[in-house]
């Protein structure tokens, strides 16, 4: 016999998986727009708003399930974690929007060197896919790999920041275009935050499965 609580848990799981797909799409589209110079601000804004609404819906449903069914053990941990995961996906959407907003504010950047941003974006894309896959498979071990990748992302961000602050020679200084390094720095920062949230999502999965906080956190 199906528990009444399971009907609610299925609903919350479906919302979370919808959020996973939408947040993934938002971040990937914003990165593509940086790469190709396309204007997707309106679309990303709509997706970001939808993610925020779904986050509220997740919280409302979680509170309702706790109030009506008093879940315990794995059920309780799952519901609590869904609120955190929903927040993470909502942040993905917000950072995707921040990225396209940077592009609109700064203007034309097709002449900039995009290697640093696209390099980090590639790692962050992989992290998003890995965190969503871990959620689908309830893989409690994904956090180790994600934190390793997060270290790489953090290092890339710090490296670029250092390069901007302390150019190696006069030629470097001459080549530095504020539109390029400001846009790159801001976007690298947003990608770095997305990377953090991918790790937090895997922490939540670890907590659901084991009842313990992730060892890294």
């Amino acid at each position, binding site marked *: *016999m199906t*528990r009444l*609580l399971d009907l609610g848990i299925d609903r919350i799981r479906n919302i979370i998986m919808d959020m996973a797909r939408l947040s993934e799409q938002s971040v990937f589209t914003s990165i593509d727009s940086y790469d190709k110079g396309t204007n997707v601000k309106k679309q990303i804004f709509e997706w970001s708003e939808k993610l925020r609404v779904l986050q509220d819906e997740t919280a409302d449903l979680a509170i309702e399930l706790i109030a009506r069914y*008093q*879940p*315990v*053990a*794995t*059920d*309780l*941990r799952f519901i609590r974690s869904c609120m955190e995961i929903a927040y993470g996906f909502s942040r993905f959407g917000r950072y995707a929007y921040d990225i396209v907003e940077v592009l609109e504010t700064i203007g034309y950047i097709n002449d900039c060197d995009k290697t640093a941003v696209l390099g980090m974006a590639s790692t962050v894309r992989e992290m998003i896919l890995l965190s969503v896959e871990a959620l689908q498979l309830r893989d409690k071990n994904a956090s180790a790999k994600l934190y390793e990748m997060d270290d790489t992302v953090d290092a890339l961000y710090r490296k670029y920041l250092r390069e901007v602050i302390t150019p190696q020679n006069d030629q470097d200084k001459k080549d530095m275009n504020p539109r390029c390094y400001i846009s790159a720095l801001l976007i690298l920062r947003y990608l770095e935050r997305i990377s953090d949230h991918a790790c937090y999502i895997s922490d939540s999965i670890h907590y659901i499965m*084991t*009842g*313990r906080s992730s060892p890294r956190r």
Partner: protein
Amino acid sequence: MSNEEELARVVFSQGSENALKEEQKEQTYKVSIKKLEAWFGTKQALKDISLDVKENTITAIIGPSGCGKTTLIRCLNRMHEMTPSSRSRGQVIIDGIDIYDRNIDPVIIKRRIGMVFQKPNPFPTMSIYDNVAAGLKLNGVKDRQLIDEIVKESLQGAGIWEEVKNELDKPGMGLSGGQQQRLCIARALAMQPEVLLMDEPTSALDPMASTKIEELVHDLKQELTIIIVTHNMQQAARVSDYTAFMYLGALVEYGPTKKIFENPEKELTERYISGKFG
């Protein structure tokens, strides 16, 4: 901080804090159950139960019907042996003394270990006052002033004094179900027990009366060690410091209530408390 906030802070933090403090204390137990087994005729009701209960804590015993919860607490004050064809084996040690030792008088045990039952059972022909005083009188207390004091203290301790202080001579049966149950708790408290056993004490009460009993249990913990059998999982989670889960006469898991309800060790416990049984 408002009173409500202060109350919420105390209630929400106390269970885990108590459990932690108790863990840090030297491991001395008010009640130690060792390899306890019990039978009704040839049917074994308890299988090799070992369990240590710390002083001034509330321990909830949960499990499906027929798992041996009631039998277990009836063994803790030697009520089990009053059932024809029943027997038990093992030790129940209270403050270092085995209550099943042949030199121990079961009557003294029942004085030290009070019991409250599922259905409120005031003595039907007695007044409120006499219900509480009955045990004292049976035990030879004759000093009227002393009895008056103990009756008042017990009714206060059971949180019912203000409601009945002007009608002590009225029949106990005239009270509401919740009041009757608190009267029964007062009756148990009058004997100044050290351990209070409660067998589903709120199952026959409405939510308001149940809440009062739960608050009372929380307060009584300052003076007593309480073991409560309950079918209400949320009640166990709310009131107890420790929870024991029983199944088919065996103790499956025992630990701090927070741990049992958030992250139980055993799959069987998880399935039971989550309602995934059967």
